[in-house]
């Protein structure tokens, strides 16, 4: 091989490497910039009062406590309403449903549900839960609406996690006389759990950030206190942020960035929780 050829290969190598680094940087830098920008601008607004007091003067003063709590309630409600149904549907579709046109249609519908714009879910919730079922503008209606949206993701990730469990484990269990349900319960589900948890928490943090659907089914801009029942209206961080930024003249900029920062922290800490649970489940499973 001539010296030129070697030099040319070296150059190609370096170019390719450079492109890869560049592409990664293009992805990473805006994210870093965004986070730093929000932290720098929002940190000033964060105070004990900001985190623990209800808003006053149309949100220009006081805090965002009800919005933080409202977002947690919303995530909890969504979780309770979507997780069991999602996992059970995932089990049914992978383990029990026969492979026929109906099952394929259902699977396709579920995949497509994930792509439906969130405002459409909002209108659906308004029509079904708020009006037809008379749950009114409430935490319950909003949780149900977000649960419908989250279901697409929970079912899909549950299915994928269940399918990924090696056939050898199922056979090993069935071959010593475990029933199909025992096999699912004691072999398949424990194996699929980390995947299911990851999918669920990602769906939850997405729900926490949703503004459009809750806008029409129960979120309020300012409430003096916390919701005392599922039938109350509620505040939520993303909607509060949207209204504060777009509809309140004279809103201090720092407050807006402060709300954004809190929302970011809530979502990111939920994601960290998912990673933490996953690592723990995995460690216990491999028995150390």
């Amino acid at each position, binding site marked *: 091989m001539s010296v030129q050829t070697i030099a040319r290969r070296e150059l190609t190598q370096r170019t390719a490497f450079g492109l890869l680094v560049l592409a990664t940087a293009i992805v990473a830098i805006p994210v870093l910039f965004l986070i730093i920008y929000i932290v720098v601008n929002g940190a000033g607004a964060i105070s004990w009062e900001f985190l623990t007091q209800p808003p006053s003067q149309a949100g220009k003063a006081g805090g965002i406590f009800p919005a933080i709590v409202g977002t947690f309630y919303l995530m909890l409600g969504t979780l309770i309403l979507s997780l069991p149904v999602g996992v059970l549907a995932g089990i049914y579709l992978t383990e029990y449903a026969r*492979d026929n046109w109906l099952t394929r249609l259902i699977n396709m519908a579920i995949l497509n549900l994930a792509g439906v714009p969130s405002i459409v879910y909002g209108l659906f919730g308004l029509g079904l839960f708020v009006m037809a079922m008379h749950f009114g503008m409430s935490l319950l209606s909003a949780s149900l609406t977000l649960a419908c949206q989250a279901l697409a993701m929970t079912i899909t990730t549950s299915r994928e996690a269940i399918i990924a469990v090696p056939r050898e*484990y199922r056979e090993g269990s069935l*071959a010593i*006389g475990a029933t199909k349900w025992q096999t699912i319960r004691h072999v398949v589900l424990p194996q699929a759990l980390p995947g299911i948890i990851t999918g669920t928490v990602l769906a939850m943090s997405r729900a926490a950030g949703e503004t459009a659907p809750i806008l029409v089914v129960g979120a309020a801009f300012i409430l003096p206190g916390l919701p005392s029942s599922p039938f109350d209206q509620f505040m939520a961080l993303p909607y509060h942020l949207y209204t504060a930024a777009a509809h309140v003249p004279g809103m201090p900029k720092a407050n807006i960035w402060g709300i954004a920062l809190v929302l970011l922290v809530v979502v990111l800490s939920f994601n960290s929780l998912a990673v933490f649970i996953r690592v723990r489940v995995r460690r216990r499973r491999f028995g150390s």
Partner: protein
Amino acid sequence: MSANYAPLDNRAVHSQVIKLKTEKVNLYYGNFQALRNISLDISKQSITAIIGPSGCGKSSFLRLFNRMNDLIVGARVNGAVAIDDINIYGQDIDVVELRKRVGMVFQKPNPFPMSIFDNVAFGPRRHGRTKRGELEGIVERSLHQAALWDEVKDKLGESALALSGGQQQRLCIARVLAVEPEVILMDEPCSALDPIATLKIEDLMRSLSDDYTIVIVTHNMQQAARVSDMAAFLMMERDRAGILVEYGPTSQLFTNPKDKRTEDYITGRFG
């Protein structure tokens, strides 16, 4: 039928009780016939080796006895497969109950991703035995039987996945023994193991055959010769359906095969 074995010689070792029996069994996967007209008797507390070229239906044949073929969509069986003279494809057969009596060890060791103890206790627990003391007894006995106890007795709580391949396979055998089966099916149990681990499993099989009826599928003819009492040679017909070519005492099948095709196979002319 093209198989020209003499039926009388087929009926295993005379003085012993027939444990497993297939009679004119055909197995289909959809339109594809995987096994054709296979009849053989397997006597109690013996080791029977199923040998033959790849794809001839050895594993499918083995899976008749615990109805694992049922898991494959479109699988169909006709003819009779019997344990203690009861047709296991009959109407009122509980497959879960059947699989307790007929355990299976797979080609690739497949311990569950849980502790060694939990692996062995898995079967008994599913069958309703939950008392800790009782389970401890079962686990110890099964691991002893599988010649694994001394190696793992101090780390029962550790992950089964940390064991070596050979240990994992013996653990899988212990897991089967824990449900006290009568028959143990082994589907190429040593193909993923090194020679030393293989010899350990073979020794184990010999000692287990005092109490259990063992049927083993193997690619390794030396292994079949070393370990089995009886051997069955399967091969494919033109349409890829597996047929039984010859069945007889291992020593005879390997030294003095009756069928030309068996001779060709064991002398390495094809397969």
